[in-house]
């Protein structure tokens, strides 16, 4: 018995929440009666079950009874029950415009009679609190069915008092990449027969919960996102961390990749300080000034879904790979007269070699003793700019970068880096000559000593 009571309570409690306004304190009780001037009376009890099953189950009392503001119950007088019905039927027209009503052929006749003075209150056919469609409507598609309510300026209210419009623009749906989906494809559990009532603490809670919808189709992205720094932050209780619909939107979802600047602007909403630095960099300026689509925007380096913490060693060690995606690609670099040798020359030098060994030994959990210089340490991250064209300027800029790791470095120190040109006879003649000497000396030594050994063994064998 107790269990049964608990179950009844659990089924009804959302409804009690829904009608928590004072209205139901009186109108749910038997015995609430309205008296008319002609001596007649009418039961003013609202059948909660009937209301729950009606098409208006999601509306609040005040959505229809707009002349009854909170905390005050106007004393109004009606001549008769008929008068009351006509007056209350006018309430319907706040949402259902006369044009909309007239559009149904069945109503045409009624309007003509109304003009003649014969009133036909809506409630005569449709009922009041238990309002239902008079016949089962056949909608061309599901969208039309849902939009029959959701095209109206409806709002839902959250427990913390925030509201959100649940009006859906058909044009948004039609222009989105999901134009071929029906409402219930995303709004799982909703249909022409089922409209679950859900409760959310706040608008943000609702947004986060709504983003869970996406994973039913985009599971791969969901998995990637679950590895991202945003998801980690969300799990830590930082509710402002973005979820799917914060970046992609909802009913008007578009392809992201059309214009790169749009992607950057989405990130800008939260990371404005970084965006401001980025748009001043070589990449940012090309994107803004020239609308260049070759340059990287946020997601090209940080990825879109499995965005990792960029301050970790793991991320740092991947930076040469990230830069090389474009800077080793002749089809992009040739357009701007840039060298594709940058990564090769970096990896051939001390920092690059050490980094690649660090990466190999990582599998064995051997941690690097110190961070190694990668592309961004000399060239910058969001503020990547030209190192300069004049030799003196480059040297000065470079020395500053060297000193961030080698604080004692003297002016000569930066010359130790022969830049990304590699060894060549014009820029580094000394290295070029040394390299050539050893290219001759090494094979000569090997050949000379090998001949000695072979001849010696041969003579020994012959003598025996």
């Amino acid at each position: 018995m107790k269990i049964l009571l608990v179950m009844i309570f659990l089924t009804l409690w959302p409804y009690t929440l829904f009608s928590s306004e004072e209205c139901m304190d009186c109108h749910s009780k038997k015995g609430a009666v309205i008296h008319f001037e002609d001596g007649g009376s009418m039961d003013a009890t609202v059948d909660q079950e009937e209301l729950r099953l009606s098409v208006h189950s999601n509306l609040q009392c005040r959505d229809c009874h707009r002349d009854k503001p909170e905390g005050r119950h106007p004393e109004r007088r009606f001549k008769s029950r008929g008068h009351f019905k006509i007056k209350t039927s006018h309430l319907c027209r706040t949402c259902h415009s006369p044009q909309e009503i007239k559009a149904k052929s069945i109503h045409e006749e009624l309007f003509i009679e109304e003009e003649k003075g014969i009133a036909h209150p809506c409630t005569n056919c449709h009922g009041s609190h238990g309002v239902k469609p008079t016949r089962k409507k056949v909608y061309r598609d599901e969208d039309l069915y849902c939009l029959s309510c959701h095209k109206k300026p409806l709002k839902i209210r959250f427990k913390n008092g925030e509201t959100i419009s649940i009006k859906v623009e058909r044009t948004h749906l039609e222009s989105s990449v999901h134009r071929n989906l029906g409402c219930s494809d995303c709004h799982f559990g909703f249909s022409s027969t089922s409209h679950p009532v859900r409760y959310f603490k706040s608008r943000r809670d609702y947004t986060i919960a709504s983003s869970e919808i996406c994973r039913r189709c985009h599971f791969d992205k969901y998995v990637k996102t679950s590895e991202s720094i945003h998801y980690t932050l969300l799990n830590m209780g930082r509710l402002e961390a973005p979820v799917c619909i914060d970046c992609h939107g909802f009913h008007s979802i578009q392809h992201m990749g059309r214009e790169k600047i749009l992607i950057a602007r989405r990130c800008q909403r939260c990371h404005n300080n970084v965006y401001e630095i980025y748009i001043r960099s070589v990449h940012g300026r090309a994107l803004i000034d020239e609308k260049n689509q070759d340059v990287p925007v946020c997601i090209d380096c940080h990825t879109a879904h499995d965005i990792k913490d960029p301050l970790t060693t793991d991320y740092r060690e991947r930076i040469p790979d990230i830069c090389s995606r474009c800077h080793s690609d002749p089809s992009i670099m040739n357009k701007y007269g840039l060298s594709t040798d940058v990564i090769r020359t970096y990896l051939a030098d001390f920092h690059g070699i050490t980094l690649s060994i660090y990466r190999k030994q990582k599998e064995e959990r051997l941690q690097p003793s110190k961070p190694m210089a990668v592309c961004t340490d000399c060239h910058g991250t969001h503020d990547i700019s030209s190192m300069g064209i004049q030799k003196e300027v480059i040297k000065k800029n470079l020395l500053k970068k060297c000193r961030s790791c080698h604080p004692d470095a003297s002016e000569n120190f930066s010359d130790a880096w022969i830049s990304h040109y590699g060894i060549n006879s014009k820029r580094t003649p000394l290295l070029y000559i040394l390299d050539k000497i050893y290219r001759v000396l090494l094979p000569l030594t090997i050949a000379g000593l090998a001949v000695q050994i072979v001849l010696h063994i041969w003579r020994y064998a012959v003598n025996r």
Partner: protein
Amino acid sequence: MERIKKFSTFTIIEHAIAMVTFLILAVTGLIQRYHDLEISKNLIIFLGGIDMVRIIHRSVGLIFSFEVLLHILAGAVSLYRGVEPQILITGRDFKDAIHNIKYYLGFESKPAATGLFTYRQKFEYWGIVTGSIIMSITGLILKYPVDTTKILPGILIPASKIIHTNHALIIVIIMLWHIYNAIFNPEVFPLNKSIFTGYVEGSKNIIIKKL
């Protein structure tokens, strides 16, 4: 059989130090130069990571450099005392080399007569000594690049890197030749023990000069 004193105790100890440090340097150096090879990767991991390999290479390199310095000083002291150096390369050694190659090819009936050190040993010795000096200097430059460039031009760093990595290979090749001459050479196989005992067996070499 006549036993002739060839190496002093000091030289025997020097050789032992050089042998051990050289082996360590060669292994820890080669795996850095050929870090892309699977065996290098495994060895690096076995030794505790590249940072540890570098600590070993640099520390042992310092010991090796001291040994090189000690050897030069000892040589200088000997010269100062008026000891006649046996290891200097003379015109005769080149003649010996040509003579021996002729002998190997069958144009001469006997191998070249030799002094306390054969021309092969002399060439080995000087290859190793000059190489070790070069390796020590460039090694120190690479270990202290910031301090080096306080007085010397920066280009010395990449230059030292080229010399250090390439000359290392030359020394390794000479060392392989030395190992052949001292171990695998059929005339001395399984081992020429003179550097450990200090003596040579008189019958093996034709001795012109005695110590």
